[in-house]
Every structure is written in C-alpha cells, then in structure tokens.
C-alpha cells in the first residue's frame, strides 16, 4: 500500500486566521519551527487515535492561535498559565488528552511557577516547550532562554551574565523533581533531529494515554525573523550555537518503570446534594432555645500567640451564631505561630454589624501583661475585663471596670493541659456576664470541637472557669 505523507486530518482544512486569500497556510513566518511541531503533534494525535479527545492549550506568544489549526478541543490560556489550565482540564476530564504548548517567555518566564508545580505534581499532561531563545511575537526581546552574548532588541550589546543572568535550562531544572516521567530536549536543526523530535512528541502523548504521568518535551526551534537570519541559516545556528547551551538528550525517563494508570486522577463528580447536606449540618439548630441577647457585645481577646486567644474568640462567635445572633470575628496577629502577640475582635449583635474591628470593647480578655497594658484603657467605662492573674502581674482599674481575675492557665494545667486556658476563660466570661448559659455553650462546644478526644478536657475547662467566677461571687 502506498505511503503518503500529507497534511494530517486533525488539522482544520481551512485556517480561519487568514482574513484573505486561500486560508490554507499558517500565520507563522517562513522557516518558523512552530509549523513543524504543529504538524508532528497533529500527526501524532491522529495516529494514536486520540484526536477526538485531545485538548490543545495555547499559550500567549506566536502560537497563541493554536486553536485556528487543531481540530481538537482548544483552550487559550492567560500568559504562562497553560500548565495550570491543562491541570484543570485533565482533572475535570480524566479521559481527555491534554497538551500544553508554550514558548520560552510563556513557560520559563511568566509561567515558571505553574510549570514547575505542574511537573512536581506529576500531572498526567504533555507539555511541549518551544524554545527559540527570543520573544518572537513581541518583536525579538530577550527571553529567559536568550543565550549569553545574544543580541536582542532589549540586549542590543548582547546578554550578559551580570546584567541579565544566564539562560534558564528548563529540562535540567525539572529533571531534579521526583514526579515527572519523561523529560527530553530535542531540536529542529536537521532531519535527524526533526525525526527524533517526532518520536519524542509521540512518546510524550503515549505516556499520557497510558496514565503514566507528566512529560515535558523541550524543542529547540528557530526564529528566523527574530534572529535576523534566513531559514537555512537559522537551522544551522540552532545546531551550531544553541545546542551548545541547550544540549539535546533525554534528561529523565522512567516511563518503563512507571505503572500504567498510576497518575490517573479519578475525580469525583461535584455532588450538589453532599454539599447541601454539609452546609445544612453547619447550621443545625441546637435543641435548646436560642438565648436572647440583652446587649450588643464588642469583645477583644488578647495574649501571646499559642495561648488560644483567637480560638477563644472563634468559640464565642460560634456560640453567638448558634444562638441566632449576628457575629463577626477578625484576627490580628504577627507572622509567628507561637510566641508573638495576637488578638481578635468579636462582635455579637442583635442587628447587622458594620465594622468588624473592635476599638472600644465592652468585654476584654487579656492573657498576658503586654495585652493588659495595651488594651485596658480602650475598654468602655463599666466594661468587663478578664485577666489571667497567673500570668499578668498588673491589676486593672477596678473602679472603672468590672474585673475578673483568675489564674486560667494554672487552672487549665491542673485539668490536664494549659492549652485549654482559653476555654477556662470562656467559662468565666459566660458565668460573669450571663450572656450564654452553661448548657448552651457546652452543647455548642460538642458540635464545633472537631477533635472529639479533646472534648472532655474542654468541657471540664469550661466548668472550672465557670466555677472560679461563681466562687469569687
């Protein structure tokens, strides 16, 4: 049977990009490498029988119009984001064969993060990286892969290491990651290289079809226009100069060891019912009657990070929410998870809340001395102030404020963990102010405390705080 090499059927018969004339040629310059790679990809998806389920993700760059050529699924992603877009498409449609096709500016400059992380996750996609060492579409500016000494419109005296850094070698970088399956660099400099490129493209797609994971094919491609060379000269330049900086070869290939289907991600369809049930469970009313609120509360909780002051505020806000009130909770903390200072503002109101921050609380809880110093004066006259007297050395102004002093951390430590000092305080607040009854709070705690093994300690802590206030009278 005759062997015929001709335009693969997975190309459109007419390329609508062309506004006039026969609509049969690409928009690429004479001698551009994109056309070659397009042709090899089109041939591969047709030969592998996956054209119907292929999705081609175009980048920003000369190949931005990929969707005018490939008669497959097409996406045109934001600059550099092709790997992230491809990830989404693949995960939502695991049967699709997803290709991201990107140039050097797209993949190795603005899209470096997406590229590296898609590779690191071993996304089951095929990435085709067209490296021509220049920004072609925008008129020949320096790219991340521009070579030292190469003149571009933005490096008119040639790229230098000191001023512009070295060309980025993506294959070498990605090959250090454990997840990728196949990483290779091929070229379009001569027939032998072109046929190797063809093989690599087919292999990358085959790996994806078998669910064997991420593959990355970097293709050194000529840009005769950007390089200011005629096409045959540009191909020579590619083999003589570019290959020195970007050596061809296979940088990683574990496709033989990779288990078929290992990187297939079976995504569960979005379950509206399950989401609804979950949200419903969040607002399950308590069996107890909601508590009327005598007064709007503006609370501030302050202490060292790690004492649980943010959680304390969150608990109180959640109790308020269960009671049917309007609540807000806003934390303020430094970058330290432990040891810095932290505070949060909680509003529990009968009506709608305006600003969620609390500048002048009527309930202040301080669990360290700096917080007492900082916030005592902000409390409104006659407001409540709760002080961990085991930690704070100072005493608030008892004439102006209703002060409750209790060694919450010591009480918590006796119960079993100093970490529940915040819930001791919660007990004290409720007992002193009478905002929520003990049963009401404890029933809420049973719902909102996720680690059930800690529930008993927390309930004991609440009772102890409540009791401490009762004993003080």
């Amino acid at each position, binding site marked *: 049977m*005759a*062997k*015929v*090499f*001709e*335009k*693969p059927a997975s*190309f459109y018969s007419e390329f609508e990009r062309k506004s006039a*004339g*026969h609509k*049969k*040629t*690409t928009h*690429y*310059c*004479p*001698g*551009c*490498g*994109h*056309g*070659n790679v*397009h*042709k*090899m990809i*089109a041939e591969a998806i047709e030969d592998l029988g996956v054209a119907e389920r292929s999705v081609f993700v175009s980048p920003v760059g000369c190949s931005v119009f990929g969707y005018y*050529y490939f008669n497959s699924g097409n996406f045109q992603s934001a600059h550099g984001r092709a790997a992230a877009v491809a990830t989404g498409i693949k995960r939502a449609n695991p049967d699709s064969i997803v290709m991201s096709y990107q140039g050097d500016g797209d993949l190795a400059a603005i899209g470096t993060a997406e590229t590296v992380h898609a590779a690191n996750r071993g996304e089951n996609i095929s990435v085709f990286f067209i490296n021509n060492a220049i920004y072609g579409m925008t008129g020949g500016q320096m790219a991340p892969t521009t070579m030292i000494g190469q003149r571009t419109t933005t490096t008119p005296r040639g790229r230098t290491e000191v001023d512009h850094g070295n060309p980025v070698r993506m294959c070498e970088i990605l090959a250090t990651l454990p997840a990728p399956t196949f990483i290779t660099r091929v070229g379009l400099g*001569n*027939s032998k290289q*072109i*046929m190797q490129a*063809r093989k690599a493209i087919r292999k990358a797609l085959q790996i994806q079809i078998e669910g064997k994971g991420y593959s990355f094919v970097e293709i050194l491609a000529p840009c*005769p226009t950007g390089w200011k060379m*005629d*096409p*045959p000269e540009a*191909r020579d330049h590619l083999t003589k100069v570019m290959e020195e900086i970007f050596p061809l070869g296979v940088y990683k290939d574990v496709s033989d060891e990779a288990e078929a289907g290992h990187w297939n991600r079976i995504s569960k369809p979005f379950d509206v019912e399950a989401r609804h049930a979950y949200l419903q469970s969040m607002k399950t009313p308590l069996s107890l009657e909601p508590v009327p609120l005598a007064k709007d509360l503006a609370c501030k909780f302050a202490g060292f990070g790690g004492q649980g002051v943010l959680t304390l505020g969150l608990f109180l806000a959640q109790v308020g929410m269960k009671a049917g009130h309007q609540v807000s909770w806003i934390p303020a903390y430094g970058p330290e998870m432990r040891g810095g200072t932290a505070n949060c503002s909680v509003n529990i109101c009968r009506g709608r809340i305006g600003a969620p921050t609390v500048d002048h609380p009527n309930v202040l809880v301080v669990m360290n001395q700096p917080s007492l110093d900082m916030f005592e004066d902000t409390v409104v006259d006659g407001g409540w102030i709760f002080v961990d007297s085991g930690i704070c050395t100072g005493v608030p102004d008892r004439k102006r404020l209703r002060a409750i002093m209790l060694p919450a951390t010591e009480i918590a430590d006796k119960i079993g963990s100093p970490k529940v000092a915040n819930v001791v305080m919660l007990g004290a607040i409720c007992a002193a102010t009478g905002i929520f009854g003990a049963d009401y709070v404890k029933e809420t705690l049973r719902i909102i405390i996720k680690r059930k093994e800690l529930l008993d300690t927390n309930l004991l802590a609440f009772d102890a705080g409540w009791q401490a206030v009762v004993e003080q009278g």
Partner: protein
Amino acid sequence: MTTEFPYMEVDSELCKGCQLCIDVCPKGVIAISDKLNSYSYHPAYYTGEGCTGCGLCFYACPEPGAIRVVKP
C-alpha cells in the same frame, strides 16, 4: 500525477519559500522556482526525478499542507 515511482509535490501557493526542504533532501531533487506565487514567495518544486519517498522534506516543511510525498 500518478506514477509507480515515489514523488513529492509542492503546492506552490502554500509554499513560503523557506528552502528547508531543499536543505534536507538527501537526493537534492527539490529546487526553488524563479516564479513568484501570489504571496510573492519563490516556491519550491520537485525537479521530477530521483525522489525516494523518504518524507524528510515533509517533516522539515513548517507548513501543514504545502508538501505531499507519495511512496507507492
């Protein structure tokens, strides 16, 4: 065009005259035309004898549909 021998053909209207096919042809049987096509390129053409049907020109050509190679 029917023949028992392999041949290549260039659609002269789709050719952009980059000459890459000429560069890769092992037999040197492709040449560039003196004439201009309607996009003002000098297209390549098959000189008519010696093609082995290897297909290298097809893959070297950046245009999807400009070159067709038949190997009977």
